[in-house]
C-alpha cells in the first residue's frame, strides 16, 4: 500500500464508521470498488476496530517516571571525587557497588552508590553521614575499612577498602559442610571483629552471610558496617512504623528487632548465632519458604539445637551458638566480647538455656488465672450485693465491667501470642494501661466490698474479698511483670 492509498483509505474509514453494518458491503463496493487493495484493507480495519476494545490504554505513560528515574548506575570511566569507576561488582537493596581506582593513592577501592530512595531527604542523608562517620572510626583487620564519604548532586557514595574473595554465602551454598576446626576459627574471627565494634558502641544490625567476606589469605571481614538501613527488605517486616527506622534482613534479625523495639549489641549477637548455625550446618535455623515465614519463626520458634545438626562441633562452640540465638536478649551474651571470652576460655559452660516456650507457658498460665480470678471476684460481689444493698451494687457493676474488659484484653493477648506473634509486642504495649486500670478498679471495689461485708457481719466473706483483692494486686504488681519480662523481655513501664 502506498501513502496515497493509505490517505484515501483513511478518509473512507472516517466516513465508514457512520455506515450501518448491513449496508457496509454495498458502501465499500461503491466507494472503494475500483481499488481492491484499499477495499480489503478497509474492511479488515473496520473489523479490527470492532474487536480492539480497550486496546492501547495510556497506562504505559504512567510508568514513564519510574522508568526514567531508574538508576542507570555509574559507567566505567565515571569519576567520583578522585576515584575512577572501573566496573560494577554488585548491587543490592542498598544500591550499586563498584570497583574503582583511587588516582591519588594508586589503590583499588570499593564504592557503594546508595540507592536514590535512601537519600531522598536531608535528614536521611544526615543520618547516613553520621553512621558512616561512626563506622569509619573502626579499625580492625576483620572489618572492612571506610575511607571516605563522597557526595554529588545529593547522591551519596561510600568509599571503602576493596575486599576480594568469597562471601560466607558463597561458601554455604557451594561447599560441603566445613570442618569443625574451620567453623571454630570462623566464629572466633567473626566474634573478635564484632567485639571491636561493640567496644566502640557500634552495632551492625544487618549481619548476614552476604556481608561476610573471606579474603584469599583467609581473613574474614565484615562489610557494610553502620549501613543497616530500611528498604533492604521491602516491607517484609511488620511494624516498620517510622520511615527510616533501622532494620535488617529477616532471618537474621533478632525478635526485638523484628518487633520494632530498640536494639543493641545483643541483636548482633543473635545474628552471629544464626550465621554460625547456618555456616556450620548448611541449614538456616528458621528456614521457611518466605521472608515473612522466617521472621515469624525467628520470633516464635526455637531452633533445633546445633548439636543435633553437627554432632562433631566442640560442645563449647555449640553452646555459644545456641545461647546467641535465645529469643530473650537477656539470655544471650551481652556483646560479642563475651562470645570471644566464651570461645577463648573454651571451658566455661554456658548456662542451660531455658526455652522461650517454657517461660511463655508460665505467662499463659498467669493470664488464665487472672481471668479466673476476675470471674471469682465478680461472683463474690454479686453475692455481697444480695446481702447488703447500697454501695455494693455500684461495686458489683464496677467489678463486672472491669472484669469483662480485663478478661477480654487478656484473652486477646493470649490469642495474639499464639496466632499473631508479630503484632504481639504492640498489642501488649497497647493493652498495658487498660489492664492496669481494670485491675485497680477491681482491687479497690473488692476492698470496699470487704469492708461492706464486714459491716454486714459477714467476716468470713469480708476476709475472702480482701484476700482476693490482695492476690489480684500482687499478681498485677509483682507476678505479671516477672512472667512477662521473662517470656518477652519487656520491663513493666
Amino acid at each position, binding site marked *: 500500500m502506498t501513502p496515497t492509498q493509505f490517505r484515501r483509505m483513511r478518509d473512507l474509514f472516517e466516513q465508514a464508521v457512520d455506515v450501518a453494518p448491513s449496508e457496509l458491503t454495498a458502501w465499500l463496493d461503491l466507494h472503494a470498488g475500483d481499488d481492491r487493495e484499499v477495499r480489503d484493507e478497509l474492511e479488515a480495519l473496520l*473489523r479490527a476496530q470492532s474487536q480492539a476494545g480497550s486496546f*492501547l490504554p495510556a497506562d504505559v505513560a*504512567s510508568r*514513564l517516571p519510574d522508568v*526514567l528515574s531508574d538508576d542507570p548506575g555509574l559507567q566505567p570511566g565515571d569519576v567520583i571525587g578522585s576515584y575512577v569507576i572501573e566496573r560494577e561488582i554488585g548491587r543490592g537493596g542498598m544500591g550499586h557497588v563498584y570497583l574503582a581506582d583511587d588516582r591519588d593513592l594508586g589503590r583499588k577501592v570499593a564504592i557503594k552508590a546508595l540507592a536514590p530512595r535512601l537519600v*531522598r531527604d536531608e535528614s536521611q542523608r544526615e543520618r547516613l553521614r553520621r553512621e558512616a562517620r561512626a563506622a569509619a572510626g573502626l579499625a580492625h583487620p576483620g572489618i572492612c575499612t571506610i575511607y571516605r564519604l563522597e557526595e554529588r548532586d545529593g547522591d551519596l557514595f561510600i568509599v571503602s577498602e576493596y575486599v576480594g574473595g568469597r562471601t560466607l554465602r558463597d561458601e554455604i551454598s557451594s561447599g560441603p559442610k566445613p570442618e569443625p576446626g574451620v567453623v571454630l576459627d570462623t566464629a572466633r574471627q567473626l566474634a573478635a571483629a564484632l567485639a571491636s565494634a561493640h567496644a566502640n558502641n557500634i552495632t551492625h544490625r544487618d549481619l548476614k552471610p552476604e556481608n561476610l567476606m573471606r579474603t584469599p589469605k583467609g581473613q574474614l571481614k565484615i562489610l557494610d558496617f553502620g549501613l543497616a538501613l530500611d528498604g533492604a527488605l521491602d516491607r517484609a517486616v511488620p511494624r516498620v512504623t517510622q520511615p527510616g527506622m533501622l532494620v535488617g534482613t529477616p532471618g537474621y534479625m533478632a525478635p526485638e528487632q523484628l518487633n520494632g523495639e530498640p536494639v543493641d549489641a545483643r541483636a548482633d549477637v543473635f545474628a552471629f548465632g544464626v550465621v554460625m548455625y547456618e555456616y556450620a550446618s548448611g541449614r538456616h535455623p528458621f528456614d521457611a519458604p518466605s521472608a515473612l515465614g522466617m521472621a515469624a519463626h525467628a520470633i516464635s520458634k526455637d531452633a533445633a539445637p546445633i548439636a543435633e545438626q553437627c554432632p562433631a562441633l566442640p560442645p563449647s562452640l555449640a553452646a555459644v551458638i545456641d545461647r546467641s540465638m535465645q529469643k530473650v536478649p537477656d539470655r544471650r551474651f551481652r556483646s560479642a566480647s563475651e562470645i570471644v571470652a566464651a570461645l577463648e576460655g573454651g571451658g566455661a559452660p554456658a548456662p542451660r538455656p531455658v526455652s522461650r516456650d517454657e517461660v511463655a507457658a508460665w505467662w499463659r498460665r498467669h493470664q488464665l488465672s487472672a481471668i479466673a480470678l476476675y470471674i471469682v471476684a465478680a461472683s463474690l460481689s454479686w453475692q455481697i450485693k444480695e446481702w447488703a444493698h447500697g454501695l455494693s451494687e455500684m461495686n458489683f457493676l464496677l467489678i463486672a465491667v472491669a472484669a469483662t474488659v480485663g478478661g477480654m484484653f487478656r484473652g486477646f493477648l493470649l490469642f495474639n501470642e499464639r496466632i499473631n506473634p508479630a503484632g504481639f509486642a504492640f498489642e501488649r504495649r497497647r493493652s498495658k494501661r487498660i489492664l492496669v486500670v481494670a485491675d485497680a478498679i477491681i482491687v479497690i471495689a473488692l476492698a470496699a466490698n470487704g469492708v461492706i461485708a464486714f459491716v454486714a457481719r459477714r467476716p468470713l466473706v469480708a476476709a475472702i474479698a480482701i484476700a482476693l483483692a490482695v492476690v489480684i494486686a500482687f499478681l498485677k504488681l509483682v507476678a505479671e511483670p516477672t512472667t512477662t519480662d521473662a517470656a518477652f523481655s519487656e520491663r513493666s513501664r
Partner: protein
Amino acid sequence: MTPAVTSSNDDRPDANVAAVLVYNELRRLARLYMRRERPGQTLQATALVHEAYLRLADGGKPWVDERHFVAIAARSMRQILVDHARARGAEKRWAGIDRVSLTESLVGAANEEAMLPALDEALTRLEALDPEQGKIVELRFFVGLSIEETADVLGMSPATLKRRWALARAWLFKELGGG
C-alpha cells in the same frame, strides 16, 4: 544511554539536538521528582513534559512552541519506554505468547510492556504510510494526552482526531496479530 533519535518525519533541522536536550531534561526531572516523592504522590507523564518545557523554555531553543516541544518529548518517551522494555527482555516474552491469548493480551493490557517493541516496529511501518498516525499514537499512548489535548497539539478538531486515533488503533491491532 544516549537516545538514537532520528525523526525522519520532522523537517526541522535541529530535531536531533532538541530530542537529546529534551531526553536529558526528562530524565533529570524524573529523578529529581522521585527523590522528593512522598507515598501516594505520583508523577504524571504529561506534568513531566510540561515541567520540562517550562524549564527549557528560555529563548534560543530549537523548537517553535510548546506544541512542537510536546511532539518532540512524545517521541523521546516512546524511545525511552521501548528501550526499557527491550532491555528487560520484552521481545522474548512477547514471542512466548501464543496466538490464542494474543488478542486477550492486546485488549486486556496484560503483557503491555512485552508488547512495546513489537508495537514500536508496527508503528514505524504505519508512519511510513502516514507520519501523522505515528504522532497521534505517541501523544495518546506514550504521553497519555487526552483527545482534546492531542487534537490541540496537532492542530485539528477533536472529532477528526478521534476518528484518526481509532484508525491507528485498528491498524496496529490488526498488525500485531489481533485482527
